[in-house]
């Protein structure tokens, strides 16, 4: 005897259809970027377009990564500038954020709520409205055009974000561990340093990645504060390619791809932390 034939699960099929749609929407622009980046300029500027490059070439990538020609020289310099600024921002932000996040998570000092809300509220304001006063501040400090001005201003978003993320991680570390250490005679600071810090390493890594990606992708401050071409970071520098070689779309797509590689690699390797950092706080576990 056989059971009745299982009815078709329409919802499952609707889900598959939707996935296909959303996947197409997401992936096609990326594929088109890659396909364009392996075309010659002549091939890209055709109508109707070559859907598949007739003569695929890596020439655009070679040009960008070859330090002996001027395009490659510029590109690699922007790359290095971006890396250096993002790394400095991350380091500074995380070091300052760790004790603050810990205090917000564990201590109940007067003003805690107010201070923590001000940290949160910073995330509500766009970079653009901070530009004018920070520009004057940087001019007063003689830092306009320097990488230091970027590192300092990137803290406006890097620091609140780091505090917020790290606090979430500390909240999830059971307080009983510290209490046990205290009973065994550790001071509060020792408990923090020897018990909590090692346990929060994943949180610190996640926060550092977040901070690095944010700084790597930053555009507004870099656009406004950096006036010398050899100090530009990638997002701003790449636009210069566009302005200078107004029609070199394959080159621009190759540069865009290379700019995205570090963040995508970081994201893929540490995806678990990234997702956790993103959803931290919004979902009560």
């Amino acid at each position, binding site marked *: 005897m056989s059971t009745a034939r299982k009815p078709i699960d329409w919802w499952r099929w609707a*889900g598959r259809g939707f996935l296909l749609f959303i996947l197409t929407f997401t992936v096609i622009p*990326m594929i088109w970027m890659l396909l364009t980046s392996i075309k010659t300029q002549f091939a890209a500027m055709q109508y109707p377009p070559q859907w598949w490059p007739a003569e695929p070439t890596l020439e655009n990538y070679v040009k960008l990564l070859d330090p002996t020609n001027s395009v490659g020289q510029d590109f690699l310099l922007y790359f290095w500038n971006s890396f250096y600024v993002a790394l400095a921002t991350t380091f500074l932000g995380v070091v300052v954020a760790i004790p603050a996040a810990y205090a917000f998570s*564990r201590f109940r000092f007067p003003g805690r709520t107010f201070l923590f809300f001000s940290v*949160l509220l910073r995330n*509500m304001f766009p970079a653009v409205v901070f530009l004018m006063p920070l520009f004057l501040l940087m001019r007063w400090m003689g830092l306009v055009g320097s990488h230091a001005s970027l590192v300092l201003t990137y803290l406006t978003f890097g620091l609140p974000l780091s505090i917020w993320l790290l606090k979430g991680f500390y909240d999830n570390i059971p307080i009983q561990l510290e209490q046990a250490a205290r009973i065994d005679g550790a001071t509060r600071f020792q408990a923090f340093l020897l018990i909590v810090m090692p346990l929060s390493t994943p949180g610190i890594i996640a926060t550092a990645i977040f901070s690095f990606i944010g700084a790597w*992708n930053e*555009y507004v401050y870099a656009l406004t504060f950096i006036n010398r071409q050899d100090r530009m970071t990638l997002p701003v520098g790449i636009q210069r390619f566009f302005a200078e070689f107004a029609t070199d779309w394959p080159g621009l797509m190759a540069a865009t791809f290379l700019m995205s590689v570090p963040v995508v690699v970081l994201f893929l390797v540490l995806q678990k932390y990234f997702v956790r950092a993103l959803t931290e706080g919004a*979902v009560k576990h």
Partner: protein
Amino acid sequence: MGNSSRKDGLLAQIIAHRVDYLYVLPALIVMLVVIAYPIYYTVELSFYKTPANLQMKDKIFIGLDNYVTVLTSRSFHKVTVNTVIWTVASTIVAFLLGLGAALSLNREFQGRGFLRALLLIPYVVSAVSASLIWQWIYHSDFGVIGALAVELGLSEEPINFIDNIHTALASLIVVNIWREFSFAMIMLMAGLQTVPDSLLRAAQVDGANAWNRFWHVTAPHLKGVSMVTVLLLMVANFNSFIIPWIMTGGGPAGASDIWITQIYELAFGRQRWGTASAYSVILFVVMMALGYFYVKALTRGDDRRAE
């Protein structure tokens, strides 16, 4: 009397907790310099007429004139409408796409992790990349969408998406959604994990169909995370600058101009910092209102952990 004893209590508390402040102090100093001071100075500047050479010692106090200028300017109404359309449309569509993707991915199957990662890539890379890629896709002569439309017989000739006052804003919204829907997806996927399997199974045993299971079991569990997600999307959209600035610069003829691009243009295009500051303060006020709900949504149950 009671008042003063409470003050003593506060002081005593502060003294008792004095070491706590050392942990927050470095962060506090940085925040004062790069966040509190700029906010204060923006408010101050908004009451002054600033010289074009930006020598602020020459600024002249003009009271509320900058606010009047902003609120009565010819473009304010249109830019505000654009801002609302941009924010609301991006938020709603990104949220719905994210919800659909989260629900579709909410079962074990091969390649699920890979799909999730792939969908997240646009959110991880810089909005500058998104802008440049889509600028090329929308290209008026060689753009791939325009060419596809011709190929499929939908259009006589390649379509001009971003240099057209009727389509510019909508085209940018599509880019914005492309970039951020996976943020909603990842938040809602995390939310879905809080839905107890036993409840869903029980509902299934009781004969509830898929829609009823979603509406009566899943949806209530997603309420909190949905609120936070929508708020964060709204804030991000309200504040987004890169996509409109790179792709159209607010054009053509202001068709895609929103508050943020307008403020940037006022400050760094026309050097009218007083007016731009007043504009910023108006934006602050709107954001504070949103921020109030954000903090409220986030701090549910925050005081359970305490030493």
